[in-house]
């Protein structure tokens, strides 16, 4: 059972899946860390992005990896606009209201998708979907290897933006000291919207990485966001590195549970772990102690 021939590929596959989970969690944790709200529309926006990637291929013949180049800025703009012109104004500065507005947004988006596309599950049949890469110790699915690389690159770019650019510094400043930021001349409403845009852009990339090997239906995003939420708690609410490492970790846990408990029980391990973390270390594995 513990033979490396089975174990190593399971761990590697877990890391590949976990990276995309981590990307979804990255968007969620970024928004939480700065706006201090849980974005309930995250799953619905991921679903919308997956539909967008799906139809970019179906209708326009665009390869998902190519479509990402267009969908990422598009979803950034969508997220920016939602926060700046819908969520922000509708919330009147009350966190409780923001929560409800994002929940309402999720319902609207999901039902719009359901109305337009029906409940059917759709898949793309791409020529390379079943290509594999031989890494010596295992055969890995090519699209998932690409996904892993893209996620690492995206995380690096995001980290550089936050660490080095003026906007990144303003985002970190607003996250911890909103009044100080306002009094320094930072336009907090703009920074909130940029952050929401970045979080939503992560979803567009995740969608393009998922669509070659996954299916899409109007509820697909929720499955991912539940896992992403576990990762956010695990990695420490608001921690960007925590989200990435937590994602990889959860991917491996899921893969190993699938291996030992059976494919259908893979996700149970995640939620048992979730409850254990909440009981033993509520600030998360990488979060600051409260």
């Amino acid at each position, binding site marked *: 059972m513990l033979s490396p021939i089975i174990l190593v590929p399971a761990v590697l596959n877990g890391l590949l899946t976990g990276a995309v989970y981590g990307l979804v969690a990255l968007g969620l944790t970024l928004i939480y860390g700065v706006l201090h709200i849980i974005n309930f529309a995250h799953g619905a926006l991921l679903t919308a992005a997956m539909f967008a990637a799906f139809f970019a291929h179906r209708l326009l013949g665009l390869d998902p990896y190519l479509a990402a180049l267009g969908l990422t800025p598009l979803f950034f703009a969508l997220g920016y606009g939602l926060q700046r012109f819908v969520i922000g104004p509708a919330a009147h500065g009350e966190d409780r209201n923001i929560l409800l507005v994002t929940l309402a947004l999720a319902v609207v988006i999901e039902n719009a998708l359901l109305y337009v596309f029906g409940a059917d599950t759709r898949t793309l049949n791409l020529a390379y979907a079943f290509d594999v890469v031989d890494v010596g110790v295992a055969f890995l699915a090519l699209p998932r290897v690409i996904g892993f690389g893209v996620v690492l690159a995206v995380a690096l770019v995001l980290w550089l933006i936050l660490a080095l650019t003026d906007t990144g510094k303003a985002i970190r400043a607003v996250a*911890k*000291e909103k009044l100080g930021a306002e009094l*320094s001349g930072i336009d907090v409403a703009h920074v909130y919207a940029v952050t929401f845009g970045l979080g939503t852009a992560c979803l567009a990339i995740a969608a393009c990485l998922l669509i070659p090997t996954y299916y899409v239906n109007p509820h697909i995003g929720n499955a991912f966001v539940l896992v992403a939420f576990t990762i956010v708690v695990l990695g420490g609410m608001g921690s960007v590195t925590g989200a990435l490492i937590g994602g990889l970790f959860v991917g491996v846990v899921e893969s190993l549970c699938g291996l030992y408990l059976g494919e259908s029980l893979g996700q149970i391990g995640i939620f048992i772990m979730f409850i254990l973390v909440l009981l033993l270390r509520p600030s998360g594995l990488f979060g600051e102690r409260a």
Partner: protein
Amino acid sequence: MSEVLLAINGLAAGYGASEVLRDIDLEVGAGEIVAVLGSNGAGKSTLNRTISGVLRATRGSIRFAGHAIEREKPAKIVARGLIHVPEARCVFPNLTIEENLDLGSYRRGRAHRERNRARVFAIFPRLAERRAQRAGTLSGGEQQMLAIGRGLMAEPQLLILDEPSLGLSPRLVEELFALIQRINAAGVALLLVEQNVVQCLEVARRAYVLEGGTFVLHGNAADIRADPNLKRAYLGL
């Protein structure tokens, strides 16, 4: 008095249904130091918040350098050169000293930023030594220096300091008042809220006394300083 920089007329403000300030009239001339004195809870910080736009005025007008600013966002008001260093300091704890300062010049160009930073480091050599340290790990006094330094980074015409001497040792308070005069000598007007009444009246040209949300006295600092009756009645000295 020289040209009027800040002019407040008939101002009222508060939190929700409770009105804290009413009938506030105040003027600060270009390059002038004006003191606002008053006991705890009188509404001094509320006045500062209203001027800098984080709190909305419910009545009255605020004009700064000829513009009506009482409906403007804080970021716009900062861009006009009116900077408020709050009582709680509000430095960015997760950012380094240098990053904190740079965000003070957020709206200025890179060349301005370098020049401003050099000037702030010349005033506060201690901040220069620790430029790469996170602000959250600084002592209270150092955080106060950083908060003032960040304010200076924005090239203020008017600097509002809310109890800058709070928590400083007597020697640092001396240094602070010397610094206030130095900042002022460079042409910056100051609105100074202080508990150190005696020192404050020495550097200020004029003073207002706030009680229960409205001004009960205003005049030349020298006159107030010289009148034991006024000092006893209004300042508990």
